[in-house]
């Protein structure tokens, strides 16, 4: 959606410059300046300062020394860092795919007309507004291997007890379960917005041609909501990569380092070991990874939009 608005404003600007004669424009800058000052202080200054710290060796309480790119070299050879990258990648892919699938399904349901629709949608949206730490604590209790309600529910359908977040091989899928529970509604809302813009006519002619429900979804709905799915993927990916609260509150990266994502390792480096310089280098790399990821996704999005236009 963001780039759609950007496109139109850019087009407006061109026509205005070209057609309208110059006139006395009101001065809008005073409105922006206070925010620029605050953004400079709490957002841009930290960016610059982080960059500067990343080329220093600096553990809290000790002298800082300029060491050039040594922190980055150390990062390249840090197995724990590469492992955390890998955990982040798995965590992110799973936390995008599962909510995307369920959220689209939910959007198709909520696009219809049925009693209590508004109320039920309100309930459905609650998890993503709820306080993540509070949610995480309750999930931790539900995951408890002996006393947790989830293992009891599994036993009812004949599945053996799981160790959930207490086992190295199941910890990430278990965390993704919580993440999915929390963020499926956001995908639902975005896709619902896309479905609202879908025209009726193609469906009527498809029905005359005898298309079944799946064919209508596959060849009509899906191509038309594809741009919205892409937006959902971009937003969800950025949030999943940065996920912190749920992981930290439930496992702190454990057992061992089995669920340690970049964000958690970064936190531990900076605020458990107080290795500020090294932590800053990690923050810089993490930032680059996120920007690169969003850039790639936006490129993909621009391309899908374009080919869709041609098909129509």
């Amino acid at each position, binding site marked *: 959606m963001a780039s759609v608005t950007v496109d139109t404003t*850019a087009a407006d*600007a061109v026509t205005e410059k070209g057609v309208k004669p110059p006139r006395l424009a009101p001065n809008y800058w005073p409105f922006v300046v206070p925010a620029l000052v605050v953004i400079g202080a709490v957002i841009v200054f930290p960016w610059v300062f982080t960059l500067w710290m990343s080329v220093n060796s600096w553990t809290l309480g000790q002298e800082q020394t300029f060491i050039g790119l040594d922190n980055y070299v150390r990062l390249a050879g840090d197995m724990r860092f590469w492992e955390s990258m890998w955990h982040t990648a798995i965590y992110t892919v799973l936390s995008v795919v599962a909510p995307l699938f369920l959220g689209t399904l939910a959007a198709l349901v909520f696009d219809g007309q049925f009693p209590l629709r508004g109320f039920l949608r309100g309930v459905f949206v609650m998890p993503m*507004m709820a306080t993540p730490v*509070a949610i995480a604590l309750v999930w931790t*209790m539900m995951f408890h291997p002996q*006393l947790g309600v989830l293992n009891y529910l599994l036993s009812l359908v004949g599945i053996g007890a799981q160790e959930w977040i207490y086992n190295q091989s199941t910890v990430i899928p278990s965390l993704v379960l919580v993440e999915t529970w929390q963020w499926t509604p956001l995908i639902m809302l975005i896709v619902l917005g896309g479905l609202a813009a879908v025209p009726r006519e193609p469906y009527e002619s498809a029905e005359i041609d005898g298309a079944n429900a799946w064919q209508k979804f596959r060849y009509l709905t899906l191509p038309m909501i594809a741009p919205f799915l892409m937006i959902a993927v971009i937003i969800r990916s950025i949030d999943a990569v940065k996920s912190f609260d749920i992981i930290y509150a439930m496992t702190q990266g454990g057992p061992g380092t089995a669920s340690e994502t970049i964000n958690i390792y970064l936190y531990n480096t900076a605020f458990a070991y107080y290795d500020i310089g090294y932590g800053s280098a990690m923050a810089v790399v993490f930032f680059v990874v996120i920007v690169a990821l969003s850039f790639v996704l936006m490129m993909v999005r621009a391309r899908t939009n374009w080919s869709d236009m041609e098909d129509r």
Partner: protein
Amino acid sequence: MTYRVWNRIGLFFAAFIMISPVILFFIWMISLSLKFEIDNGAYPPILIPERVAWSNYAKVFEENNFLLYFWNSVLVTGAATLLALIIGVPAGYGIARLKAERAAMVIMIARMTPGLSFLIPLFLLFQWMNLLGTLLPQIIIHLVVTVPIVVWIMIGYFETTPKELEEAASIDGATSWQVFRLVALPIAKPGIVVAFILAVIFSWNNFVFGIVLASRETRTLPVAVYNMLSFEQVSWGPLAAAALIVTLPVLVLTMFAQKQIVAGLTAGAVKGG
């Protein structure tokens, strides 16, 4: 006609199945918070206990200083949201009218940046300024969450409000400030409400800034509830009660302001931190 009725009933049940994990979770949360230790440790689990442990809630407030932490949360979220509205609404207006895409881009990138990368430098700054131990560092750093939300939503909103009235007013001799104050601002009220609600929610929920910046007296609720888990004998009843207290204000707000939240999230899809 009957086909349509059946279709509606079918969709209702499908929707009900989709939201059942949400309902079951919150019912279980309430159940945990109202049971004594014996019932919480029972196998098979008990949903509705014979004796209801209202004392869990009393315990949270008696033993954990929760009133203070509740008040801290109100102060931090209130101040950070108010400041964000005061500077963010005019900024959104200015950026929308100037079509300042680079400024909008900075806001966008700020939204993508992980909260931790703001935390390291600002933590050092606050330490150097000797501010740790007061609520001020948390209020300031929550601006990282609230300002981008407010500015982003207001840019989007002011782009949709008509410019003709404003132009007419300025031809009649109104100053830029008067145009904003008397013409643009009143029309933008629904947008401001959306920005306010989302800023409050994401500031209230924020956890990562608090665990680093808060001392014993300056904890906000999410940090306080986390600390209950890590430093005490974990007893589930009071813990679940505390979790419910922390998130209840946000859930109530979500139910009442559902329309605004949906509008804001689908328009800007902004999440802080």
